[in-house]
């Protein structure tokens, strides 16, 4: 028995039966006709319960049927009784039907009833209800016989024990259900069963998120279009639109196994189908029912978002929709009554609020959290972030004005006041900046989760056994980064599946677990996020890469590359090692595109491999692109900014410590040899002077007693940038410099400083490549 049904039975037993009793008592004492809708609602609930129990008994014929059947029949009789006082005219008919259904139920108990028959029975009950509804208002005005009411009360007492028997009854069935396992004996826990355990799709969070987002959109469309329809009831296009939306929603809900939504949507679809075929006119009553349905849907969707079970009160709305679809019942009713068109909205407004109240205690905690979040258009957020960026610049301008005032004009009286304000402003700005950056942060898990499916699909299509382990999906990253990191990661993971992990038999021969593992992990290291993709496949042989690269003319035959450099050759354009092109990879565009995308996000990518044992791809990304801490450096009078996330350290060296290897300068920093790049050369700053000569400038540099070196890049393989002067550290917003300045080498953008001047931001990876390129090619 699935969780939804269990939860439904549970909530029905707990809620509706006592309510019904209360209401019937009320009717008895006061004879209030106003309570009709409530009674009808609860009658509906009982009927729902009945049908569920029938279903349950169908599923579980071998045992527990007798108790269920008992409950059903008592319930049935109770229900019938409940109607009796108001249906003097309809009583014989109902009694007959009820007798029939009891008989049928007996058959169910014997396991003789097929599904079809059960449905027929349910349909019969369906038919039985409408007269009840129509009869009820008709009798409102009539006198309620006292003895009848007394009989009702007496009989109400009888069913109640049976109602309390119901949970055990449901329980019996549940015990025999295959996967009812973890301590669900407790009734309280029964209602907490998460609904999406019923279906494979529901266990996939990203699919579920997609579903929720899509349905949210569909709901908005539905709302809007239905409102349009109300204005313009005969517009075919609008009806078509609604029909399509309803159908899509139904299909999606069905796929995910959300039966409540599916059922409501099904009825709504039917309704609109009729409207579409002009068998039913759209008037305000129909629209009211439809909106009632939409409200219910919203509650159900909220339940899905909260992870709680769907509320059970779909019945009244479903019924209302069904009735509206049949058209005749509300129609004839309306005619039969003097109040006319008001009948329908009057008789059924309560269910939804009642249900909402019912759903509340279950998802209380989550709902509280839900209320504190708000969906914001990303564009607006971007504008906000940009504005905050501007304010950050303003703050530094204020600060510089303030310090100038303080140092140069100490005699000004307002100075201290001004300083204080500026400091306060700075502090507040810091907070705003922190918050605004956090607003944009989303867990990287959003990008990761879809890979589970990707890997599963790929491993199926390749007949490999691959397990994807995701670690650290909580690490937070700027939203745009999370969106953009998805594609390169998919490429890499596909590569792992396709090239990395071997076929199960090959793996077994090698003494590995036939199931390959890909580990996808994310962690924060300072100002960067490190994403690692580790597989335990066959790895890559650097020698092979080297051979391939020579074949393809990417490197010279005599190039002397270490293993690591060789491996990273696969990120070069036009390099693909796949022998044959599959639909997954091998088109030779994969890895270089990956690298370019990562570079675009100001990240780095690095590859390491142990042949035969697997491969590790390490991606480092800055946390955010919007506002970056930068180090300002000065060379030959020009100021440049180096993003701090790529700076490892700054050192002061003596020019005589610089050694030459071939034509390139290196410095021995502790135990590593640091290739040096002269910023003035990299930026061709010397060309501004007419007497340009790198040697001359270097000679001049050597004459200086000290030089500053900014060590940048990956900690394992740093590069030193030689500059004349270190200035300060500042927060700045890196801005693009427009299409004309797109391709300036070694410059990734510009930023505006405190005094309003523009400073160029260095593109560290390019400078690194320059340093390495020099040493690589010139050493060869």
């Amino acid at each position: 028995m699935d969780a939804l049904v269990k939860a439904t039975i549970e909530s029905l037993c707990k809620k509706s039966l006592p309510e019904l009793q209360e209401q019937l008592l009320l009717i008895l004492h006061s004879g209030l006709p106003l309570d009709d809708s409530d009674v009808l609602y609860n009658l509906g609930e009982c009927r729902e319960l009945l049908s569920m129990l029938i279903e349950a008994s169908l599923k579980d014929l071998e045992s527990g049927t007798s108790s269920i059947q008992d409950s059903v029949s008592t319930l049935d009789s109770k229900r019938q009784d409940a109607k009796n006082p108001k249906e003097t005219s309809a009583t014989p008919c109902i009694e007959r039907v009820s007798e029939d259904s009891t008989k049928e139920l007996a058959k169910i108990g014997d396991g003789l009833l097929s599904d079809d028959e059960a449905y027929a029975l349910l349909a019969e009950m369906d038919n039985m209800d409408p007269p009840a509804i129509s009869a009820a208002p008709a009798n409102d005005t009539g006198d309620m016989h006292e003895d009848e009411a007394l009989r009702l009360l007496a009989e109400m007492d009888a069913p109640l024990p049976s109602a309390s028997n119901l949970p055990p009854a449901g329980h019996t069935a549940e015990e025999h259900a295959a996967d009812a396992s973890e301590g669900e004996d407790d009734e309280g826990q029964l209602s907490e069963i998460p609904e999406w355990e019923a279906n494979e799709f529901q266990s996939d969070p990203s699919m579920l998120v997609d579903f929720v987002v899509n349905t949210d959109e569909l709901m908005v469309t539905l709302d809007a279009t239905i409102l349009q329809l109300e204005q313009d009831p005969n517009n075919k296009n609008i009806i078509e639109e609604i029909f399509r939306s309803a159908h899509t929603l139904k299909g999606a809900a069905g796929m995910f196994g959300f039966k409540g939504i599916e059922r409501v949507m099904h009825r709504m679809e039917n309704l609109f189908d009729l409207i579409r075929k002009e068998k039913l006119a759209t008037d305000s009553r129909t629209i009211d029912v439809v909106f009632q349905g939409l409200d219910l849907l919203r509650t159900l969707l909220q339940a899905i978002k909260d992870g709680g079970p769907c509320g059970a009160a779909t019945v009244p709305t479903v019924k209302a929709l069904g009735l509206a679809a049949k058209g005749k019942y509300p129609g004839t009713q309306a005619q039969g009554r003097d109040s006319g068109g008001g009948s329908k909205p009057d008789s059924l407004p309560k269910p939804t609020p009642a249900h909402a109240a019912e759903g509340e205690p279950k998802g209380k905690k989550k709902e509280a959290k839900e209320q504190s979040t708000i969906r914001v258009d990303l564009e607006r957020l971007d504008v906000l972030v940009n504005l905050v960026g501007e304010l950050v610049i303003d703050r530094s301008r204020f600060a510089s004005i303030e310090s100038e005032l303080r140092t140069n004009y100490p005699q000004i009286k307002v100075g201290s006041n001004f300083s204080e304000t500026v400091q306060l402003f700075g502090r507040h700005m810091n907070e705003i900046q922190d918050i605004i950056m956090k607003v944009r942060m989303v867990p990287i898990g959003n990008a990761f989760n879809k890979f589970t499916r990707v890997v599963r699909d790929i491993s199926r299509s390749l007949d490999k056994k691959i397990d994807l382990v995701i670690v650290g999906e909580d690490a937070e990253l700027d939203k745009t980064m999370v969106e953009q990191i998805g594609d390169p990661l998919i490429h890499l993971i596909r590569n792992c599946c396709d090239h990395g992990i071997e076929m199960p038999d090959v793996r077994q021969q090698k003494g590995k677990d036939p199931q390959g593992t890909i580990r996808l992990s994310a962690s924060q290291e300072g100002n960067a996020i490190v994403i690692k993709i580790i597989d335990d496949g066959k790895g890559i042989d650097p020698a092979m890469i080297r051979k391939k690269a020579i074949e393809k003319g990417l490197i010279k035959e005599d190039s002397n590359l270490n293993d690591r450099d060789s491996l990273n050759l696969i990120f070069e354009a036009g390099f693909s090692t796949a022998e044959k092109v599959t639909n997954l990879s091998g088109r030779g565009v994969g890895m270089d595109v990956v690298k370019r995308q990562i570079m675009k996000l100001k990240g780095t990518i690095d590859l390491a491999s142990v042949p035969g044992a697997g491969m590790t791809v390490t991606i480092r990304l800055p946390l955010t692109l919007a506002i970056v801490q930068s180090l300002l450096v000065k060379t030959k009078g020009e100021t440049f900014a180096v993003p701090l996330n790529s700076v490892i350290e700054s050192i002061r060296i003596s020019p005589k410590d610089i050694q030459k290897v071939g034509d390139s300068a290196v410095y021995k920093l502790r135990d590593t040899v640091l290739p040096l790049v002269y910023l003035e050369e990299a930026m061709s700053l010397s060309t501004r002077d007419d007497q340009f000569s790198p040697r001359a400038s270097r000679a001049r540099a050597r004459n200086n007693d000290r030089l500053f070196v900014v060590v940048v890049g990956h900690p394992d393989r740093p590069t030193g940038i030689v500059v004349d002067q270190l200035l300060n550290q500042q927060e700045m917003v890196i801005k693009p410099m427009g299409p004309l300045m797109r391709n300036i080498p070694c410059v990734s953008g510009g930023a505006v400083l405190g005094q309003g001047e523009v400073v160029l931001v260095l593109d560290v990876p390019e400078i690194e490549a320059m340093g390495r390129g020099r040493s690589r090619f010139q050493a060869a």
Partner: protein
Amino acid sequence: MSNSVEIFNNEISMFTIRGELGGSPESTEFSAVRQFIGLMIDREEFLLPIEVTNEIIMMHQLTFVPRAPRFIEGVINLRGTILPAINLRKMLGVPTTQFNGQSRIIIARCENVTVGLIVDGITYVVALNHDQIQVQSLHNKSGSELISMISKRGDQVNGILDIAKILGETGISYHEEEVEEA
């Protein structure tokens, strides 16, 4: 700003308005009239269609951009937006001089590109009838063609600069990049 006065005599000031600003009888027919901004480059007056100009600003602090196309003098900060500034002197093959107090930057746009054009001074806004404009492209010494039309006002003949050609001259394709890698 102080040493500028001797280079330009006072009658060429951006505040002097010569010519008729749409006051002539012909110009009442609006569609026939085009307005131009007069600008000075090395004592010669050029015109720039007013519809491509966003604004004219004082000479700004320029940031030198290494390895940029040689006409690009640097980048400027226009209220938070970073724009490249093109030195029209360099582009027209006129020897460059120090900027002075008369120097202005015309913020001009073409399609999606906004650039600053550094000029030696602004003269005035001039309205021209279409019969005062002759379509005629002219080459400068270095063989590039920045002038697509010539204005005739009595005896006075001025070249009308074409912003698209100026941008084309930078040698950079500034059009929206469609090929953002496959």
